[in-house]
């Protein structure tokens, strides 16, 4: 791909000549000339500039009035004078700031933004030192909790519209809006309903004043008494780059840390607010060993290590590991080596097991935005599995890309579980007219993004075959969404530690020992079943749970904020997680190193020195070995009475989120999504209570009618689907 020729223009800013590509924004042009123009509302990531705050007023040669620099672009011969050299601009800017401060409460000593507030900083640097406002300032009720996680102070708001532009033009949730007009404008939600959206927390970072603040951070810390540690979120397979703010050894908030190829500086509410799980009441704090008839007993690490080593040694090589997929590569590698090299075991449950062929089509997530056409396959909503990917897809659509979604709620409607079959049809140029047309456009386009969000065990291989058959070249990318945050890294660590594939837990024979690594694995019903066949079970987990009934030794686990190590995200990018706070006990790696000593496997008790930069780069593409052949796709089980149930795993779920009270409102309501036609046939409207079940037994859920959902299909979040089969009958209660 050859870069298009760039036309350079010469612009004069405050007497300094600078050459920039034609069309560069004036704020950036001035910066290139070494001149800072202060701004509030300007934020290129929010789309086109709006010129709302007027802070960037400048004098432009040939224009009689002062201009908002943020709305101008560089043209050849332009002469711009900022407030630093133009008295007229300085006067204008001063007046603007005086106006902005007219009703601003100046409660900086009381305000959490104080010390890191653009309004405060710019007023100090550029603003008037006093006010001529003698009238009482406007007051509002405050703070208003616009959601359990965000507080709004309307007195401090300067109406820059950054937050509403985010809601409308980035996350597209359209929930936070500016109501009324002119001086009466206020930022609000509808009817005081909570701002409930996966990305709502970003408005607290966008707000240039103390109007929108995270409720969890109110009166918690001051900028001069905190530490910000660069790390990587460990809650979904995107791996957004973050800052973790700590004060006195406690995490107080999480902020985004812009990695332009991964997250573009956005962070979902799960990544932002889940940190409170560190302080959950039911955290395990010391190792527990089961004592016959007396239940569990807290023991020291020496006893625990001895007990674990004994149990594993007695297993005689019949050892399996159940991974969570959230472990660091170092942790997973330690476990894998312990079992494969130290004990001669060869079995693991891997949450993700992607075929390495996908790496032949590796590309940064940001390439989605530049695609001409995007294809999204699979039943699992992208927003629930890897939310940032959904933002990239929206950005692509806004930039003019066609986004084809194939699935039960897609623009091309297919039955549940048919991603594999559809991909085979697309690759072979078959299928419905709609699909054939889409396939043709995918072949014609030079920049394609394919997102695969399903749970088929061989989705990686199928996705790679599809990408190969569509001829995806440079500039195109394939993104198979793993189900766990570091599923790719864990699988890689497992395979590097020895020969052989993963493990099929469906057998019947007795197992010598089972290692349950982390809470996700401990919650997995398949793992619980496996544990019944194991003579010895060793579990690590942060929290108490059912597994504390069936494990023999339980060691306290750490959160991703409490350990050092490497994680591999869905792109295949290795990133570094840093220990932000110390865990209240040994971390897993230290414990495994001690077990390793007992079993004769040398394991380093810490992650190697950072081999990954703060902004990790993506490794080059792998070579595609002979494109894998297509196995015929298993036909989906479409037949059955009633509606076919699609169960998805919501983003706001899992052991961490479930322990954070302020995120309870984000968890899916007890609701079942129904297709329009099915709802009509049953006389059901959105909001009705319906009975969902089969053969008379059923439960009451709220109905949500969706026009996009395929008739014959109902969709439900996993936590409300417990005990429901693959097909259900839905009747109005």
């Amino acid at each position, binding site marked *: 791909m050859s870069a298009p020729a760039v036309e350079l223009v010469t612009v004069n800013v405050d007497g300094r000549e600078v050459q920039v590509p034609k069309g560069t924004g004036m704020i950036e042009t001035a910066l290139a000339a070494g001149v800072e123009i202060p701004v509030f509302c300007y934020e290129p990531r929010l789309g086109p500039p709006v010129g709302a705050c007027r802070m960037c007023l400048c004098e432009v040669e040939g224009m009689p009035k002062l201009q908002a620099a943020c709305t101008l672009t560089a043209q050849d011969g332009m002469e711009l004078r900022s407030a630093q050299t133009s008295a007229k601009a300085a006067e204008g800017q001063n007046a603007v700031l005086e106006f902005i401060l007219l009703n601003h409460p100046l409660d900086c000593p009381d305000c959490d933004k104080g010390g890191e507030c653009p309004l405060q900083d710019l007023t100090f640097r550029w603003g008037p030192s006093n006010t001529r406002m003698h009238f009482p300032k406007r007051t509002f009720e405050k703070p208003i909790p616009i959601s359990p996680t965000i507080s709004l102070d309307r007195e401090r708001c300067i109406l820059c519209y950054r937050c509403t532009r985010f809601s409308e033009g980035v996350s597209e949730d359209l929930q936070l809006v500016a*109501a009324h007009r002119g001086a009466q404008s206020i930022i*609000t939600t509808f009817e005081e309903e909570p701002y409930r959206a996966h990305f709502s927390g970003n408005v607290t970072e966008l707000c240039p004043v103390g109007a929108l603040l995270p409720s969890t951070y109110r009166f918690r810390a001051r900028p001069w008494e905190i530490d910000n540690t660069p790390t990587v979120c460990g809650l979904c397979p995107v791996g957004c780059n973050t800052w973790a703010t700590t004060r006195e050894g406690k995490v107080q908030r999480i902020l985004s840390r812009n990695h332009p190829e991964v997250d573009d500086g956005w962070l979902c509410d799960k990544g932002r607010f889940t940190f409170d799980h560190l302080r959950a009441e039911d955290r395990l704090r010391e190792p527990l060993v089961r004592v016959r008839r007396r239940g569990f007993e807290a023991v020291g690490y020496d006893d625990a290590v001895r007990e674990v080593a004994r149990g594993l040694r007695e297993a005689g090589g019949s050892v399996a590991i159940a991974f969570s997929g959230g472990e660091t590569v170092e942790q997973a590698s330690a476990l894998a080596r312990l079992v494969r090299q130290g004990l001669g075991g060869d079995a693991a449950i891997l949450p993700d097991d992607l075929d390495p062929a996908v790496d032949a089509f590796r590309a940064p997530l940001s390439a989605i935005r530049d695609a001409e056409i995007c294809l999204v396959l699979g039943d699992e909503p992208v927003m629930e599995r890897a939310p940032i990917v959904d933002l990239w897809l929206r950005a692509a659509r806004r930039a003019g890309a066609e986004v084809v979604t194939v699935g039960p709620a897609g623009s091309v409607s297919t039955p549940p579980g048919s991603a594999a079959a559809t991909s085979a049809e697309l690759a072979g140029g078959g299928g419905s007219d709609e699909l054939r047309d889409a396939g043709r456009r995918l072949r014609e386009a030079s920049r394609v993004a394919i997102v695969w969000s399903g749970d088929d065990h061989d989705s990686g291989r199928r996705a790679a075959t599809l990408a190969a058959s569509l001829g995806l070249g440079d500039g195109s990318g394939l993104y198979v969404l793993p189900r766990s945050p570091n599923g790719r890294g864990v699988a890689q660590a497992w395979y590097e530690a020895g020969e052989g594939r993963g493990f099929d837990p469906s057998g019947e024979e007795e197992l010598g020992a089972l290692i349950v690594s982390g809470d996700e694995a401990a919650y997995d019903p398949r793992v619980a079943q496996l544990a019944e066949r194991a003579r010895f079970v060793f579990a690590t987990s942060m929290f108490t749970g059912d597994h504390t009934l069936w494990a023999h030794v339980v060691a306290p686990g750490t959160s991703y904020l409490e350990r050092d190590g490497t994680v591999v995200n869905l792109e295949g990018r290795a990133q570094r997680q840093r220990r932000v706070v110390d865990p209240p006990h040994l971390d897993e790696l230290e414990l495994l190193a001690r077990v390793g000593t007992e079993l004769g496997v040398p394991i380093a008790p810490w992650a190697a020195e950072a081999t990954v930069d703060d902004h990790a780069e993506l490794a080059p593409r792998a070579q595609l070995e002979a494109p894998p052949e297509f196995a015929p796709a298993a036909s989906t089980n479409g037949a059955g009475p009633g509606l076919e149930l699609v169960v998805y795993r919501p983003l706001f779920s899992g052991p961490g989120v479930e322990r954070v009270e302020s995120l309870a409102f984000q968890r899916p309501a007890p609701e079942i999504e129904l297709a329009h036609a099915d709802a009509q046939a049953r006389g059901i409207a*959105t909001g009705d209570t319906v009975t969902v079940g089969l053969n008379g037994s059923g439960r009451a859920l709220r109905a949500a009618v969706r026009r996009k959902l395929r008739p014959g299909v109902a969709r439900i979040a996993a936590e409300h689907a417990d005990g429901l089969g693959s097909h259900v009958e839905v009747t109005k209660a």
Partner: protein
Amino acid sequence: MPALHLAQDRYGWLPPEALREVAEALDLTPAYCYAVASFYDMYHLEPVGRYEIAVCTNVSCALAGAQDVLAAFERELGVQAGGTTEDGEFSLSSFECLGGCGWATVVAVNWRYREHVTAGDVPGIVAELRGGEGAGDDA
């Protein structure tokens, strides 16, 4: 916006349910519809009377005595600008430019204009509307 007008014609104003219905029909959110509806004075977020009387108080009309006209309406109807009479018959508002500067003061009754209105005309207008004639429900 036409959808909001349709909803307002149906309900007489825009209650939250109406905004929800418009949002669902257009695949938008109620918040977005509320933002639009609250921006424009011709959408009502509270119930209004059968007759909506809008008195232009912008520059031209103000120079021609619009404040007196408004005060006369307030006296005659017994409500302040922005209010609705207790019998639900009249809503009175002070309006920005109605675009009839040449015929100041302009008073719109259900968006049908009356021109060159003076304070002295007000009792007559109110009496006429109370009599139920010439209401202009078709506006």
